[in-house]
């Protein structure tokens, strides 16, 4: 009866998560894992809820989110503009292309110590790292989308009287949107990962820092809490981006 109210997809999607939690509980209950190392799921989730209502934990979440959004936003603005510019202008392309080829395979996290030296241990170094890591997928997929715009779309707009410089905004950008949003999705996931890791390596606040602190004091439960939090945040943000994507791309046929 309830399947009429719960869409079957949601049900199927939740089932394995339930399964994981069940296995988890099983491992603890049957003594395969000592509770000190693997606390039972019930305990973890109640601790999570407990933490979520505390101001200190909320501040940690806020710190992480600020860096996440700031870094991601910078990556989107830079990535989309450079991507479109490179696709539209051969001169810019010739300069950007080799730089990207050199920088893309470089693990940006290796730059982190340098960023710490230059920007200190606070928000700045982390935001820059997030932006640097999220930039490339967004730039590349924007470039791809912009350079594969159907020629006849551009021609149709030109015949209708659109001057050349407007074509970028009125045709290229909308037509490249599917690619851009795919790149943004990858960039968002990367942003979540990088901000967390950066906070784990050196930080005074943020979810990553919470995890490392708990590790140092051997509090297993308190280690799971930030981990699950960042995963949930990632899922929520991904869901929001997905909804935005559905809205923006409502006219596009499913590729």
């Amino acid at each position, binding site marked *: 009866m309830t399947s009429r109210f719960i869409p079957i997809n949601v049900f199927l999607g939740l089932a394995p998560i339930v399964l994981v939690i069940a296995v988890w509980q099983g491992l603890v209950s049957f003594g395969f894992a000592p509770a000190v190392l693997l606390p039972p799921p019930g305990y973890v989730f109640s601790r999570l809820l407990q933490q979520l209502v505390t101001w200190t934990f909320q501040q940690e979440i806020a710190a992480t989110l600020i860096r996440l959004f700031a870094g991601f936003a910078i990556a989107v603005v830079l990535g989309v503009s450079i991507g479109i510019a490179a696709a539209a202008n051969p001169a810019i392309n010739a300069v950007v292309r080799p730089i990207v080829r050199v920088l893309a395979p470089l693990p940006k996290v290796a730059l982190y110590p340098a960023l710490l030296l230059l920007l200190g241990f606070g928000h700045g170094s982390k935001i820059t790292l997030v932006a640097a890591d999220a930039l490339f997928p967004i730039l590349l997929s924007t470039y791809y989308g912009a350079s594969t715009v159907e020629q006849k779309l551009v*021609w*149709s707009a030109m015949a209708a009287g659109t001057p050349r410089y407007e074509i970028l905004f009125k045709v290229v950008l*909308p037509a490249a949107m599917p690619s851009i949003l795919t790149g943004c999705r990858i960039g968002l996931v990367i942003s979540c990962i990088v901000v967390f890791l950066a906070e784990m390596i050196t930080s005074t606040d943020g979810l990553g820092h919470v995890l490392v602190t708990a590790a140092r004091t051997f509090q297993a439960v308190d280690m799971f809490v930030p981990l699950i939090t960042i995963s949930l945040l990632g899922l929520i943000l991904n869901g929001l981006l997905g909804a935005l994507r559905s809205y923006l791309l409502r006219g596009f046929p499913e590729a």
Partner: protein
Amino acid sequence: MKVVPSRSSEWVRPVTSQKPASAIIEIDRVSQVFQTSARKDHLALSDISLTIEEGAFVSILGPSGCGKSTLLYIVGGFVSPTGGAAKMKGQTITGPGPDRGPVFQEFALFPWKTALGNVMYGPRQQGVRTTEAEAQSRALIEMVGLKGYENFYPKELSGGMKQRVALARTLAYHPEVLLMDEPFGALDAHTRTRLQNDLLNIWERDRKTVLFVTHSVDEAVFLSDKVVMMSKSPGRIRQVIDIDLPRPRRRNELLLDPRYQKYVVDIERMFDEVDETGSPS
């Protein structure tokens, strides 16, 4: 049937024309060379000279690869000819413009806009106020037979409907010349014949100049006043044929009309002659 010898750059004016027609498009010794990846040069068009009169429905007919689309794109200003020039009302064509509106085989509708949004694009670009543009566009959408589909996205429309939207979109900015590149090529036969009829009905209203590219002989004969036959690559003009059939043309009448049948048979035979003897001189 009047058949004009192939080296024509002048027309024999049909006796039936009411007023002296003025030339709106002149194509003067246009040739087009493309560089292929193998660094060889491919001559797509060779020494094309043609005059299109205002208000004429002219088909460019030829086999695949003969450069007929390229010729259309040159007139549209999307491609610059490597040799010669095309002129519109005496001015050399240097780029696209709202005086020459294209309709493409692939429809090329903006997928992020609804049917109405697509049609409104041209007027909005020309500075027409939104409410006015919307009203005009709705009227056009109704004229092409898609009333009720204004808020549909292109992906929700069938091929025939998409092409109607494409036509409405081009008509919306009132081009003097319609450039149609095998517009019905991607559609099934039934939809194609319906759209051919509808196109003629729409065209009858204001008799714009139309340059219509096709590889279908009966389509060319059915629709046009003149058929320009092109040879295989490199494309040259083989013949220009006046189609002296009365308008308005009804498909069910015309199919049974022996004059129509003769045109189709004769033109098809001319194509076969080319195939047998290779490229014409």
